């Protein structure tokens, strides 16, 4: 009989977020032949609809209202209430991004349904849809299923693969206008911070600094390495508490939980609360002066040495390799 699935394909700063394809792949695992609809807000380039279709969307639903141009809780919640009323899906899947984290719980309460957030895996087990999600910031994992009402989940970026593309599929597009009124929170301004645009939660590579960087200026070599690798910059709690950098960079059980392909920890000793936030990264590299530092216990590759010597050398080596690839 199949399950009708709605997937939210989020556009940020004019780009379709990569996690959209990962969420579509999650939908493909559980739809059981039912229609997969990708919801996109506003008129977007044709390439977005083509990409979503080739990644598994049976229909692209373009939802229009001026208020959806930028994020507000009320606009996004109201739009989705209309979409759900119209489409009556069995399953709703969204990426676990800042905006979905913000409005998905409201939508779930409005729909009187459950919500399983921050899932890193989804599978069918004994005929049931089972979601896996980290608890204690990744110190353990929980398997959870919906026992009553709609199935609603948010999917953490970088965990479920994107799945294979099939470019022979044809785009099937529908449009819907929604009413939005009474927006209670007004975004006056968005201040871009100095993180150079690579977001920690979706970054494929993260270069992170700890107490070992010793000062705000000590973050410079780390930022340079990150720039060469197209990586995001992170930090340990120690570095944030010492005010070497902003709390928005903190990785750990308090702070962000990340799962990049490559995590380079520089001058980070590896307190339990930091390890919780990054130990599910695919490859971990540790650079630390202290050979006894606990970070080496979970690192795939370790270099015992002074980060101020090692990191600039690493930056130079990578720069050469990347320039060679480009030429």
């Amino acid at each position: 009989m199949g399950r009708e699935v709605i997937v939210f394909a989020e556009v940020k700063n004019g780009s379709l977020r990569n996690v959209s394809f990962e969420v579509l792949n999650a939908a493909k695992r559980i739809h059981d032949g039912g229609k997969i609809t990708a919801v996109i807000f506003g008129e977007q380039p044709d390439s977005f609809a083509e990409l979503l279709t080739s990644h598994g969307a049976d229909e692209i639903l373009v939802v229009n209202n001026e208020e959806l141009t930028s994020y507000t809780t009320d606009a996004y919640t109201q739009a989705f209430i209309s979409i759900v009323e119209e489409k009556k899906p069995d399953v709703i899947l969204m990426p676990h991004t800042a905006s979905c984290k913000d409005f998905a719980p409201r939508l779930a309460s409005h729909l009187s349904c459950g919500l399983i957030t921050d899932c890193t895996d989804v599978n069918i087990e004994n005929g049931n849809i089972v979601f896996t999600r980290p608890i204690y910031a990744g110190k353990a994992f929980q398997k959870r299923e919906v026992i009553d009402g709609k199935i609603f989940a948010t999917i953490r970026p970088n965990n479920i693969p994107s799945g294979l593309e099939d470019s022979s599929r044809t785009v099937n597009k529908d449009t819907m206008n929604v009413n939005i009124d009474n927006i209670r929170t007004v975004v006056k301004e968005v201040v871009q911070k100095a993180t150079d645009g690579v977001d920690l939660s979706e970054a494929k590579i993260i270069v992170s600094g700890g107490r070992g960087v010793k000062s705000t200026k000590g973050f410079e070599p780390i930022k340079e390495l990150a720039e060469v690798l197209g990586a995001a910059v992170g930090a340990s709690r120690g570095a944030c508490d010492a005010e070497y950098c902003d709390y928005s960079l903190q990785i750990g059980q308090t702070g962000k939980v990340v799962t990049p392909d490559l995590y380079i920890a520089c001058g980070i000793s590896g307190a339990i609360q930091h390890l919780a936030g990054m130990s599910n990264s695919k490859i971990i590299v540790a650079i630390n002066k202290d050979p006894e530092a606990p970070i080496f216990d979970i690192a795939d590759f370790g270099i015992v040495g002074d980060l101020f010597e090692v990191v600039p050398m690493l930056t130079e080596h990578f720069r050469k390799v990347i320039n060679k690839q480009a030429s």
Partner: protein
Amino acid sequence: MNLLVCLKQTFDTEEKVHIENGKVSEDGAKFVINPYDEYALEEAIQLKEKFGGEVTAITIGTSQAESALRTALAMGADHAVLVNDERLIGDEFTTSKVLAAVMKDKEFDLILSGYMSVDNGGGQSGIRLAEELDIAHVNAITKLEVQGNQVVLERDVEGDVEIIEAELPILITAQQGLNEPRYPSLPGIMKAKRKPIQELKAEDLSIDLDQIQAKTKIIDQVLPPKRQEGRILQGEMNDQVNELVNLLQGEVNING
């Protein structure tokens, strides 16, 4: 101002997690107020100090959670409510329904909670509560200013900052960076011992148990797979760095 703070007792973040029979073992673990809820509590106390009013700390849990409420009272909360009834324990859907029932009869200008708990990490209960009460919310805030009936907030959005204006009453969830929670003072601790903690059960809240049953179910909890033992590189530093770059090229797509 009438300030309501929802808080949860959680494992200390320095605790290791052990699993026994598919459940996280709580034996011997040190418990604290969920760090994000502590930011919410501190902010509420600071607002009370500035504008006057009262702070009420509310939690759902067993009698063990009383110690979290004692800490809240010692920090400066005026009242404490413990919902202690295992029929009211469920998932985030249940929790928000129960919290809404507690708050229904209370007057409030601002409700504060952490943006997530460091144990379950769902990040849902506060936001769902706002929907249950039909008030606005702002999630993950790092700054809060009250001007009369208006609030100006800074919200952490994937590293960027949104500056948001809204009106009271509202619910906010606290992100790290909002403030530096105080340690309870000794006189505060002594005074807190004598303050009453109100205990509530389903009957006190006129909750229809059928209406709050969990929508989701935990079927298993497991530890992450153990990482393979890593390798500490040896030799001249330049050779080590060279080797590392070669090793990583084979494993990760590096293209700058």
